[in-house]
């Protein structure tokens, strides 16, 4: 369906003009700016301009103790705060050789996966909004609301949870949470079927995504794209499987991959992932051990042995890695946050060349960008 050949000579200087998509534009969901050199409706060059909400999180990391930096990790990618906190506490625990009680690890998995579902739901709604369908957004938020209620019940916060602690959890879950989560899992499945008939099978929607914005395996590798983007290109790369962390090896789940590499493939990966998240949550609830949720002997003043430590997790948008360089002080020497959205967006310039404007926006939506995640 995609028309590849522009009508006039593409990119001839007297034929092009520049339009700004962003930093205030309905398509960018945040303050991303894409400077697009256009030839008619064809994109000659689309250059993302980042940094509009740069907060220098890494400098903040050098100014405060490990425990004090922890709340910041919820605010990098505000849609999947749990996984980001997991990455940070994981790195610290790895360096301090802390052993996290199994109950805490299971609850981390449950809450991370709930958070992943909520993140994918927001993406789903916002993506449909990009494509001009408004109603699915509200249905997605209706479901997401239930997750937020559950997480608010145990963490006290709806978006920036700061729920994990170095060595365990802030608080144990209660029976209401477990009951509520089971109820949610049970009622999410029919909703997914409804989403499929309402959106996934819709001919207008399919026409807008199939074959649009193909990204090859090679391009993903060269740009370091991860998460649903690389899985949509047929590479089963998932940190949960490739570099297993926490208790993920104990669960039976599939890493959905699609070979096509187009926007539809990325869409389907995320939709299938929601179903897999539900499976993981169910298994984790079944296996949930009892016991403490906080490691014993977490030192009040935490000093990590000198050296550098990495920890990677699979966030909703891909691989999130933390590198802590310590010089045996209370305050880290350097905290590097490797965020998935930055790498995922960096391929946009190459991938969007010669595309039509609406197609490029469909491609951008399918990358699932969270701007603070890029700008940090």
């Amino acid at each position, binding site marked *: 369906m995609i028309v590849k050949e522009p009508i006039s000579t593409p990119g001839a200087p007297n034929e092009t003009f520049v339009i700004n998509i962003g930093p205030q534009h309905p398509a960018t969901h945040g303050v991303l700016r894409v400077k697009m050199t256009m030839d008619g409706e064809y994109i000659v060059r689309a250059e993302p301009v980042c940094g509009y909400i740069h907060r220098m999180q890494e400098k903040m990391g050098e100014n405060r103790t490990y425990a004090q930096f922890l709340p910041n990790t919820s605010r990098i990618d505000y849609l999947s705060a749990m996984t980001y906190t997991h990455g940070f506490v994981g790195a610290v625990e790895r360096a301090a050789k802390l052993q996290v009680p199994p109950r805490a690890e299971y609850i981390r998995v449950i809450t991370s996966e709930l958070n992943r579902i909520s993140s994918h739901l927001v993406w789903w709604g916002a993506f449909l909004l990009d494509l*001009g369908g408004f109603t699915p957004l*509200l249905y997605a938020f209706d479901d997401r609301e239930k997750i937020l209620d559950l997480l608010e019940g145990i963490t006290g916060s709806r978006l920036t949870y700061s729920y994990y602690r170095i060595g365990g959890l802030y608080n144990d879950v209660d029976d209401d949470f477990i009951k509520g989560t089971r109820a949610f899992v049970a009622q999410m499945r029919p909703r997914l079927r409804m989403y499929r008939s309402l959106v996934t099978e819709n001919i207008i929607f399919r026409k807008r995504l199939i074959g649009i914005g193909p990204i090859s395996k090679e391009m993903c590798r060269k740009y370091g794209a991860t998460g649903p983007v690389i899985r949509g290109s047929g590479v089963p790369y998932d940190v949960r499987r490739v570099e297993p962390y926490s208790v993920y090896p104990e669960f039976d789940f599939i890493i959905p991959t699609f070979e096509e590499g187009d926007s539809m493939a990325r869409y389907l990966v995320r939709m299938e992932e929601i179903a897999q998240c539900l499976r993981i949550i169910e298994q984790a609830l079944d296996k949930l051990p009892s016991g403490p949720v906080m490691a014993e002997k977490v030192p009040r003043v935490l000093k990590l042995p000198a050296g550098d430590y990495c920890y990677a997790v699979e966030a909703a948008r891909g691989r999130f890695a933390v590198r802590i360089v310590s010089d045996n002080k209370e305050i880290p020497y350097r905290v590097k946050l490797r965020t998935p959205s930055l790498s995922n967006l960096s391929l946009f310039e190459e991938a969007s060349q010669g595309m039509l404007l609406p197609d490029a926006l469909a491609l951008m939506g399918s990358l699932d960008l969270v701007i603070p995640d890029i700008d940090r």
Partner: protein
Amino acid sequence: MTQAIANLLKLLATEPYRLLLFLVCMLAFVGLNAAYLVWVERKGAGRFQRRPGPTEVGPAGLLQPVADAVKLMSKQLIVPAGADTTLFRVAPLLMMSPALMSLAVIPWGQGLAARNINVGLLMIFAFGSINVMAIMLGGWSSRNKYAIISAARVVSQNVAYEIPMLLVVITMIMVTGTMNLSEIVQQQAGGFWHWNLFRVWLNPLMPVTFLIFFICMLAETNRAPFDMTEAESELVAGAYTEYAGMGFGVFFMAEYANILLGCALGTALFLGGWQSPFGVLSGVIWFLLKMYFLVFSVVWIRWTFPRTQFYGLLNLSWKILIPVSLFTLVLSSAMMKLFHA
């Protein structure tokens, strides 16, 4: 006294006054409808999305359109620097007036049309093409890149959809043998099986014809899923980006007036106009019921589907709608020649 009123009515029934009266009524009707269709749209969107919609202004949010109008009117009309001032100001009016004029030939009930002219359909389509011009001029004159892209889109979209629309209407003119809308409605009297939509003995593809008409109507009025001109995730607000206050308000009202016109036309052409579905108790009420059902469908469609792709939209027109409508045209002429000559 009664005599005076009767005289007045008699006077008003004469042609020039009758036209004036109907125009005034029409203006009021369209204005009210445009305002309240916004309410219907918002309320409907709310219900489709499991939320109540506007509730705060007046009972059930019924005064919301008034509040909106006051807000729009109290805003400054800004003409962007470098814009073509005249065209920029004229464009909204150019969009509104054809819709108003076209409604003059719509037969709301038996003998209830401002002008019952023999070429009513022709007149509607003659005026119908003007609103394309209006959006194009609005987009062009506002000197904004989004608006210009939108202006280019609206032209190619409307050119593409004018053709199947006209082919369908020509089919209907052939089947009914007249361009007078009142006459077309008269022919459909006596139960819903006499409606053009169901007269498959004239043309077995009549429901398809209606569908094509409806799709073209959506595309011509730039309604979702064909709202390429104001695709907010791409073009912010398209041709209306630079319009503020009532400039935007008039565009907005004209959009709803056009929807109203399209639905009224669909009702008259296919759904038997003011004829009751059971053959008795015909009247204006039936026309309004059918028309508002179509309007509801338009809202319903808008809040269900994502926007089409632009080339998908043109493909749909050139590759599916035009061939099919040509086929129905040929089929009905053949049927006429063979069976109803």
